[in-house]
């Protein structure tokens, strides 16, 4: 099917232009000399310098990063278990409910998730703040991890696992020696996805937060409501930069691992 027509190329170029142009413009205007974000007045990095003196913003960034690290790690463990449960155990009581609970959070409007978690925390008398945000983030991001890991598990050759079990390895050992290394890239990209979703979340954090725990999106949101400023463009550019570097590193690592695996396989067959 070599007929990649002009129409196909045009729709890709236009589609990607639409996706990237706003982000590119935002980054460009973060280097604007003028306070007006829509009129170019020369190159400057002064807005970045100003960020370093904004203590409230730095505090919020630190809270956000800690929440994201803890919640992404817990969500990866829980999400991987959920994916294993869905793929490996096709029959257990309440499986329908379980798969429903894994998929529903993917589309659930954030206002509902946020409100319901807040009411839970109030009902059980948990002090709201850092830990309630973290628990909330674990809950909604673990389902994204589950879906990512699940798709890898579905394309996994189960006979290797069976071989290990036949040769006398315990299920736990089989999991750590066989399954985990094979699904590791998916688990890793699940972690990165959970991390960025947590980093990004505004609505659920706003509902579940308490005094003293303000995350960066909450801070950005309260400033955005007052208007567009180059300082916000600068924070956003830094965040975009971090994510872009993370994603590029992740994809390079994954590619190398894949290549390594292919080489190993070929070597194994050659012998």
């Amino acid at each position, binding site marked *: 099917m070599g007929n990649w027509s002009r129409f196909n190329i045009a729709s890709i170029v236009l589609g990607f232009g639409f996706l990237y142009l706003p982000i590119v413009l935002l980054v460009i205007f973060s280097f604007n000399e003028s306070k007006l974000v829509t009129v170019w007045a020369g190159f400057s990095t002064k807005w970045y310098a100003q960020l370093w003196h904004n203590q409230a913003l730095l505090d919020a960034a630190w809270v956000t990063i800690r929440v994201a690290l803890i919640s992404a790690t817990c969500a990866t463990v829980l999400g991987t278990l959920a994916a294993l449960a869905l793929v490996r155990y096709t029959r257990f009581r309440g499986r329908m409910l379980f798969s429903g609970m894994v998929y529903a959070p993917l589309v659930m409007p954030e206002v509902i998730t946020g409100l319901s978690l807040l*009411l839970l925390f109030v009902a059980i008398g948990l002090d709201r703040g850092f830990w309630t945000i973290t628990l909330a983030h674990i809950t909604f991001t673990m389902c994204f991890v589950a879906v990512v890991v699940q798709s890898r598990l579905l394309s996994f050759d189960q006979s290797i696992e069976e071989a290990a079990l036949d040769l006398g390895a315990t299920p736990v050992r089989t999991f750590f020696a066989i399954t985990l290394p094979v699904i590791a890239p998916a688990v890793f990209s699940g972690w990165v996805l959970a991390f960025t979703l947590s980093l990004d979340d505004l609505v659920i954090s706003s509902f579940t937060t308490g005094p003293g725990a303000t995350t960066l999106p909450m801070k950005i949101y309260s400033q955005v409501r007052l208007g567009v400023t180059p300082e916000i463009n600068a924070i956003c550019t830094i965040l975009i930069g971090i994510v872009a570097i993370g994603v590029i590193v992740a994809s390079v690592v994954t590619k190398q691992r894949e290549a390594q695996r292919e080489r190993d396989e070929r070597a194994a067959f050659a012998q």
Partner: protein
Amino acid sequence: MARVASALFSRLVIIIPYAWLLFFFLIPFFIVFRISLSQTAVAMPPYTPVFDLFGGLSGIMEKAREFSLDNYVWLTEDVLYFNAYVSSVIIAGISTILTLMIAYPVAYGMAKAPKSIRPTLLMLVILPFWTSFLIRVYAWIAILKPEGLLNQFLMSINVIDQPLIILNTNWAIYIGIVYSYLPFMVLPIYSSLEKMDHTLTEAALDLGCTPFAAFWQVTFPLSLAGVVAGCLLVFIPAVGEFVIPDLLGGSETLMIGKTLWNEFNANRDWPVSSAVATILLLILVIPIVFFQNAQAKADGEGR
């Protein structure tokens, strides 16, 4: 011994995530429902509890008599809520159709691209989805403002002589939703188009079909699973969207996510916000079940 360990391992794999989701996802909905039946009070938390979780069965039965549907009656009495639900569904529906119209050609182009560049294209679709949602919505404010970049551009090439008013209208919300949710639509359509057997289209063409008819009679129906999944992935969250109508929409834009947020944060009326959330969930329950079934079916095919 090994068998016991094996059984224990498989139990734990299921029980740990199961228990977590039950406690942090399912039970909270019942609490929302419970609080939607209670009275507003000026206190902290600002509602009178209808029953407390540890009151035992008799406590629950006794308190059950105090259930009140006042909050739901209140929702039907004020036309604002009804309008907000209707306009959320309409706005989400229009946005979903617009997203589909933009996403389909992109996904189609990607599926037809040379195999070597497909992973790169896929990466490029996923990448914006990793950058902050809030940032991407925010970026549009500077573009759509009356003195913003879009108007500057259109006026400089003499297409218009008056700035277009887009920001704070429903058009800005459509643009915001289409932009933010585009990858959710492109990915499932792309994956169904990529799996498709292209000899079918070729057969249709050989048998004298015009390319247009071949597309509508062969390609499109075969990609329908992806189209449905994409539409649900956009429509369901868009109905309850808060950030986009709040930042890009005007003060008169009614969307239920925004209403709920205001009810909760500005009016501090938890029972009414719970009732708003309960009704929203009831509206979305059918599309959500559709989505779960589609998802479960897709997993079944992967086996």
